[in-house]
């Protein structure tokens, strides 16, 4: 399957990589003794590694293409890309046990693992909710939002400030934080109603930076870069808890929030407004011709997406007991966007898996020590090359309708 041309290309690729990594891998300067270490053997590793990687990827792609070609020749109708995924997701008999096992593992997780592991898991779960929230805006409604972290910051600071000035507790602020973020979503939504795509991305990026800069510079309001500390952890009917207990408590809280989010987001996607979002993503002109209120649809996408970020923001503040603007940089937005794109636009399960991978991978890659971010980046690149539609491409509701029956039983589901 590998032709001579592939071999030639592989050779050129390995040569290119040797050239690219030469200063990093081969030259090692010892500043004290003022000598240069020439590590020539590294050059060999890089060459061999990239040569093999290139050939492997060619082989993989070629076999994939061959399979598709064969399918076309035999005139097999285009099967859904991942058959087992679809089956697993559509049959309750198959997915219910899997779901049960996952839930059981999640529930006993804090009993087995150390506080460190639980903390990582809480962070990962937070990003699951953030991903699901952004998924509404980017994945479903198709509005590219690069400033999502602003809403996260609004949530975190609303808890920090309301607690500082008015002594409000976690449970009171949780919905308030969400609603405040949703309000900011609408504020952002109004000026960007006419924008789409790249232009929208730039405006939202600016919005995210504005919020961060305000928090950084308005000392009287937010205490500037030094942040706000001593934020109380969430209480449980006034019970006193040790640090370990409160962390496990937060973990269970996060699990509950994730389940709640999945439920709501799923209902939203299959609702009337969800269909309006899908339609808006596909074709704006057609949307208007169908009588969909563009303004309301866009604003609702922004505010409902922001709502989750606000809630997670509150939990973030409670978890770290400290907030400062440095936690809400553009990088955060980029990571959340990565989660959505990697998971497969609009797919809930995809987003969950992607969030877990993206958050847990850097932690568990610590075995690679110095190279962990390199491996992480390579994983991202490879995933996008081999499954550009995301881990799980959107399983859209499809109805197989009996020809005689026509559309009698799906109608109820729709409305």
């Amino acid at each position, binding site marked *: 399957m590998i032709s001579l041309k592939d071999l030639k290309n592989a050779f050129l690729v390995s040569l290119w990589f040797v050239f690219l990594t030469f200063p990093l891998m081969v030259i090692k300067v010892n500043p004290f003794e003022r000598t240069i270490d020439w590590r020539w053997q590294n050059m060999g590793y890089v060459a061999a590694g990239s040569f093999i990687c290139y050939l492997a990827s060619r082989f993989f792609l070629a076999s994939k293409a061959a399979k598709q070609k064969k399918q076309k020749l035999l005139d097999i109708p285009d099967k859904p890309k991942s058959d087992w995924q679809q089956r697993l997701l559509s049959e309750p008999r198959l997915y219910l046990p899997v779901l049960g096992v996952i839930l059981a593992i999640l529930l006993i997780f804090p009993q087995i693992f150390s506080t460190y592991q639980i903390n990582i898991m809480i962070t990962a779960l937070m990003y699951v909710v953030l991903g699901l929230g952004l998924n509404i805006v980017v994945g479903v409604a198709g509005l590219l939002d690069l400033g999502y972290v602003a809403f996260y910051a609004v949530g975190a600071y609303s808890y920090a400030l309301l607690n500082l000035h008015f002594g409000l507790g976690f449970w009171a602020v949780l919905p308030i934080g969400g609603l405040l973020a949703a309000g900011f979503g609408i504020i952002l939504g109004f000026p960007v109603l006419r924008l789409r795509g790249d232009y929208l991305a730039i405006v939202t990026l600016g919005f995210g930076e504005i919020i961060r800069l305000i928090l950084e510079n308005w000392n009287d309001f937010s205490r500037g870069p030094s942040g706000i500390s001593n934020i109380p952890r969430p209480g449980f009917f006034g019970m006193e808890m040790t640090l370990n207990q409160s962390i496990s408590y937060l973990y269970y809280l996060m699990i509950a929030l994730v389940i709640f989010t999945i439920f709501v987001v799923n209902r939203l996607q299959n609702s*009337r407004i969800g*269909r*309006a979002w*899908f*339609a808006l993503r*596909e*074709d704006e*002109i*057609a949307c*208007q*011709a*169908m*009588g*969909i*209120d*563009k*303004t309301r649809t866009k604003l609702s996408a922004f505010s409902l997406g922001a709502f989750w970020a606000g809630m997670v923001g509150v939990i973030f503040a409670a978890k770290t007991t400290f907030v400062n603007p440095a936690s809400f940089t553009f990088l955060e937005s980029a990571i959340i966007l990565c989660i959505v794109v990697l998971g497969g636009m609009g797919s809930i399960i995809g987003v969950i898996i992607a969030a877990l991978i993206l958050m847990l991978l850097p932690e568990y890659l610590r075995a690679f020590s110095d190279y962990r971010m390199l491996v992480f980046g390579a994983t991202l690149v490879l995933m996008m090359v081999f499954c550009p539609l995301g881990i799980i491409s959107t399983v*859209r509701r*499809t*109805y*197989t*309708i009996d020809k005689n029956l*026509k*559309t*009698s039983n*799906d*109608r*109820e589901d*729709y*409305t």
Partner: protein
Amino acid sequence: MLELRSVNSYYGNIQALHDISLKVEEGEIITLIGANGAGKSTTLMSISGVIPPRSGEILFKGKPIHQMSPDKIVALGICQVPEGRHIFPVLTVAENLDMGAFLRRDNRQIKQDLEYIYTLFPLLANRRNQPGGNLSGGEQQMLAISRALMAKPQLLLLDEPSMGLAPLVTRQIFDIIKKINTEQNTTIFLVEQNANLALKTADRGYVLETGRITMHDKAENLLSNEDIQKAYLGI
């Protein structure tokens, strides 16, 4: 039913429509013919509220609608089939049709209308589970018209239904337009480049030239008019 009174519409600073006045009576097929860039589509966009007129009035059943947003206008019963079809490519045919009924809540009636559309376009019934993007141009046009019909409009605005279609398919679509008009008593406002076919289908016609209405008459009179024949029919 619909009346435009000296409507002026602009794209930025460029005036596209100059003092357009026209009338559509209930149950009619009206056609608006003209060359490229005459302002045919802009007229439709002004009626449907996508490009609101800067001055002038648009009355639907005596009520002014020129300041309403597009979705409110659709809710009144004016539905547009946009130029270039604009179906939802990823949604299936059935879902596309369902989007047409977005504003309606009378489920039983919707179901009946769906049946009617599947009898009108049997092709769509066969392909109801396929993504709209997989259909051919003619089928997409049929889908676009059916989707608009699912909104149960009183006035259907059709923007160049013949665009990019083979002559045979075009004829088929025009037959169906006529059928919709007689069977459903839907008033139809047809914007078309194919003046010959449009005038043969319509009851009355307006001729638009560089944003101004230069002529209006019964369709058969326009068909036999020498100037029209020279300019648009190529006779």
